[in-house]
């Protein structure tokens, strides 16, 4: 069953088509990968889903409800959590406080928020640094904090934006475990944007590839990886594309 559908979603930045009639459906309980070269519009799609940008055209349906013009915080309340590509820790707050601030979205009591926070901190292996100021965390920790925070809002869908970028191999494995756990243990649907193909190809159930804001293809990872246009988009090509206008 589809939890989120984009219907011909379009964003135009002063003439530049950043997102060009993109449509896809994400099923409940799946890990949905969104790939595309730098600047192809992945993060813009995230920003449209939780309404940092207002869509020029098209619709976003979440659990059967049109959320295209809902406010950012309302969308978060409805159950869409997200992480940021450029991490946005609340720097002067401790890790625990960061996560608690998020947990208050569903918990009104202090104790409740603290409990949710400690669960999520534990889930993201941050327990030993939970009293540290978020600004002092290393990158791996910050990335996990982003996830913990998003999870603490108790979402039913989470948008992960380049959660693995900049991590070293051991951190990377840890991140993959956590991401898998989000779906397997917490039962949360995931849309993931990732450049490290090792990650995205391994964990995604389905992948949607875009370039220049428009859809190239969608399908299981192995299929998408073999798709000539995808390879070309990623690795560049020595031949001119025919019949496609990228201007």
């Amino acid at each position, binding site marked *: 069953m589809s939890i989120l559908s984009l219907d011909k979603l379009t964003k135009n930045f002063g003439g530049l088509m950043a997102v060009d009639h993109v449509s896809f459906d994400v099923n409940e309980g799946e890990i949905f990968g969104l790939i595309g070269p730098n600047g192809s519009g992945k993060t813009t799609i995230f920003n449209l889903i939780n309404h940092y940008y207002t869509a020029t055209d098209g619709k976003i349906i979440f659990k059967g409800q049109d959320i295209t013009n809902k406010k950012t915080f309302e969308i978060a309340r409805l159950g869409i959590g997200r992480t940021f590509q450029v991490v946005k820790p609340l720097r002067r707050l401790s890790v625990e406080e960061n996560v608690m601030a998020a947990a208050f979205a569903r918990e009104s009591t202090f104790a409740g928020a603290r409990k949710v926070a400690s669960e999520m901190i534990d889930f993201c292996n941050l327990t030993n640094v939970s009293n540290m100021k978020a600004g002092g965390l290393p990158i791996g920790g910050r990335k996990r904090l982003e996830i913990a925070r998003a999870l603490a809002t108790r979402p039913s869908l989470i948008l992960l934006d380049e959660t693995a970028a900049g991590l070293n*191999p051991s951190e990377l494995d840890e991140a993959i475990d956590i991401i898998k756990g989000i779906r397997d243990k917490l039962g949360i649907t995931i849309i993931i944007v990732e450049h490290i193909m090792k990650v995205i190809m391994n964990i995604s159930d389905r992948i949607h590839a875009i370039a220049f804001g428009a859809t190239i293809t969608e399908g299981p990872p192995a299929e998408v990886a073999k798709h000539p246009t995808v390879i070309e988009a990623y690795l560049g090509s020595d031949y001119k594309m025919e019949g496609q206008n990228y201007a």
Partner: protein
Amino acid sequence: MLKVNNIDMSYGDLQVLWDVSFEVKKGEIVVLVGANGAGKSSILKTISGLQKISKGSIELEGENIANVHPSEIIKRGIVHVPEGRRLFNEMTVEENLIMGSLYGEAKQKRNETIEECYTLFPRLKERRKQLAGTLSGGEQQMVAVARGLMSHPKVLMLDEPSLGLAPVLVQDIFSIIKSINKQGITILLVEQNVQSTLTFCDRAYVLENGRIVLEGTGQELLKNEHVKTAFLGI
């Protein structure tokens, strides 16, 4: 020409480069390839002095230039054409070019160099009085490259010049890079457009998570399966 020895670099408390070493010989085109966040741009930033290294050294023609102020680096002959072009949008094309030649010899030869750039990029001559922010992406990239050339660099560092350009323009940019190299300028290129760049570069290094994992000539790496894995995860 340019030698990077065992450098570590961190943004505040987060380390992004781990023991990176590589070399660019005179007259070469060397490419750094790798996924987003692998540390390619960070390497260029350390060389151009925008970021300080915590370990290792960077040598230009035998002289250590690590942690030298960026304004000094450009005078020593290394120029960095940054990712996303970073033009001065509220200045004209010609003013942007002038900004590339603020010091020393480059300043004296400014007018000649501008003419040379216009021969290289005739499009820019037509638009010399136009504000850079109003140009198309391809034209902006031309300005960025030309602005880099204005300083008469020994080494030209380009950070993803093909980013956001249509394939036709990508090929144009690459052929321009080749012709600049033929004029005797050493080139250090960062690219995601692996297929094309590996075909024309002399040598390349593959980065993963802030470390160099592979090196070799372009042709060698093109055949290497690891490259594909690194990018496509297959």
